[in-house]
């Protein structure tokens, strides 16, 4: 703040105003084909800049520093890139593996961890310099990396089903095995209270819950018998659990191989309802401060988004925002949802009350949309 006051004091009319940018309502959109990011302003519903040179972003995600000044971008090609949102420039970049899938930032903002496919494992970097701090190899591809309070991270291994908790608060990292989730975990997510790490399984039916508040807890597998009747359908895109919805005391989960959402009671882990939907769910995301979840779908049914009421478990709206809808990101208080349409080269802004489109923003093959408010959310 000292610096800000000084700047304001010194500000001459020539550059006052324009030079000071707050980041609280900004966001970044990944342009997956061109290896670039679009900087967006939520309040203005506009693109305000582009950052290039981030490598292969065909599967990419990012996270923010606690001051919302920097973004850490995790690319498919193993690239970890630190971007300065204020100057709109790449300030550090390391190609730290051959192939990676995602990452997370520690609760104190000091460490950035990356989940790698090739070679499999987790690497941890200093958030300031991107210097390697720890290298934790794994017996396969690591997935579902999340930050856990206390400078910790949790992850799972696709090939073996093992789940690990890494504690990086001391001088040397302490890695603890939490047990086995099951066959081929495809993604995992941490509940917003950091209590339960939920691991979704692809190689068998089910989801496995790990209690992170209890050192001696055993993994609990549930949803092991959904869709017993009938054949599973092909899964043309792996569901993502990062936006897994927790609402009305329930988890809203994608039924892998089924065109259904499964509702599970958060305490008893009993299935309470299923909702038939338009296609294989990819993201199921709770609209903040509301009873609704929004769902998008795998190709070839990916021009549609549905809204489901978590009380009645009924679909209450079906929208067709554009071709190849890949992601949805809500304004932190839920007033708007931003939806990326890859094949229409647009980001669409919808008012969540009227469910009407209020703006369109051009972007080249957009995929993930990330608002800076994520800086303050555990498990993202």
């Amino acid at each position, binding site marked *: 703040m000292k610096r800000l006051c000084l700047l304001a004091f010194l500000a001459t009319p020539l550059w006052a105003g324009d030079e000071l940018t707050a980041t609280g309502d900004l966001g970044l959109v990944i342009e*997956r*084909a061109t290896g670039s990011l679009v900087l967006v302003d939520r309040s203005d519903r506009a693109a305000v800049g582009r950052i290039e040179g981030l490598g*292969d972003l*065909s*599967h990419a995600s990012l996270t923010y520093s606690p001051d919302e000044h920097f973004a850490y971008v995790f690319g*498919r*090609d193993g690239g970890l890139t630190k971007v300065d949102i204020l100057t709109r420039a790449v300030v550090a970049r390391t190609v730290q593996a*051959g*192939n990676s*899938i995602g990452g997370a930032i520690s609760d104190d903002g000091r460490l950035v961890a990356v989940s790698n*496919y*090739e070679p499999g494992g987790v690497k941890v970097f200093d958030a300031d310099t991107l210097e390697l701090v720890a290298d934790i190899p794994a017996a396969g*591809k690591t997935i579902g990396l999340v930050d856990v309070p206390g400078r910790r991270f949790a992850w799972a291994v*696709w090939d073996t089903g093992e789940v690990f908790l890494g504690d990086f608060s001391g001088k040397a990292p302490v890695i603890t095995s939490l047990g086995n989730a099951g066959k*081929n975990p*495809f993604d995992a997510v941490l509940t917003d209270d950091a209590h339960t790490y939920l691991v979704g399984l*692809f*190689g068998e039916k089910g989801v496995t819950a790990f209690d992170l508040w209890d050192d001696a807890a055993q993994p609990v597998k549930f949803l092991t018998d959904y869709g017993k009747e009938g054949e599973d359908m*092909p*899964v*043309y*895109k*792996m569901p993502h659990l990062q936006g897994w919805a927790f609402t009305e005391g329930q988890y809203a989960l994608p039924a892998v191989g089924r065109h259904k959402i499964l509702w599970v009671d958060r305490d008893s882990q009993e299935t309470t309802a299923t909702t038939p939907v338009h296609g294989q769910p990819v993201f199921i995301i709770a609209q903040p401060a509301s009873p609704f979840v929004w769902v998008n779908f795998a*190709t*070839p049914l990916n021009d549609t988004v549905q809204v489901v009421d978590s009380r009645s478990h009924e679909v209450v709206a079906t929208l067709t925002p554009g071709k*190849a809808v890949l992601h949805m990101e809500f304004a932190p208080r839920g007033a708007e949802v931003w939806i990326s349409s*890859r*094949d229409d080269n647009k980001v669409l802004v919808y008012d969540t009350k009227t469910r009407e489109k209020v703006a369109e923003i051009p972007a080249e*093959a957009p995929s993930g949309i990330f608002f800076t408010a994520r800086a303050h959310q555990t498990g993202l």
Partner: protein
Amino acid sequence: MRSLAALLLLALPAAADIAPGRATELEHMVLQDCGSCHGLTRKGGLGRPLTEEALAHADREGLALIILDGVQGTAMPPWRPLLTEAEALWIADYLKGETP
């Protein structure tokens, strides 16, 4: 395996069977949808690398069958509901760098 015989019969220059507009769609599909797991540059991800080098020793009919029927026990789904056999062969040729 039921379709292998049919495929072998079909094993003609596949590009001739695919209209240019459809070829553009297939190319887009390879880039974007296959790319979800195999990478936009096809260097691999959850799925194996599909670069020309990686596929140098794979035969086109075998690749087309994998595309159509998937690989049991892995995340590779069968694309038969979305593709014809000629289209799968076109993609196999495309991946091997043999499509005009």
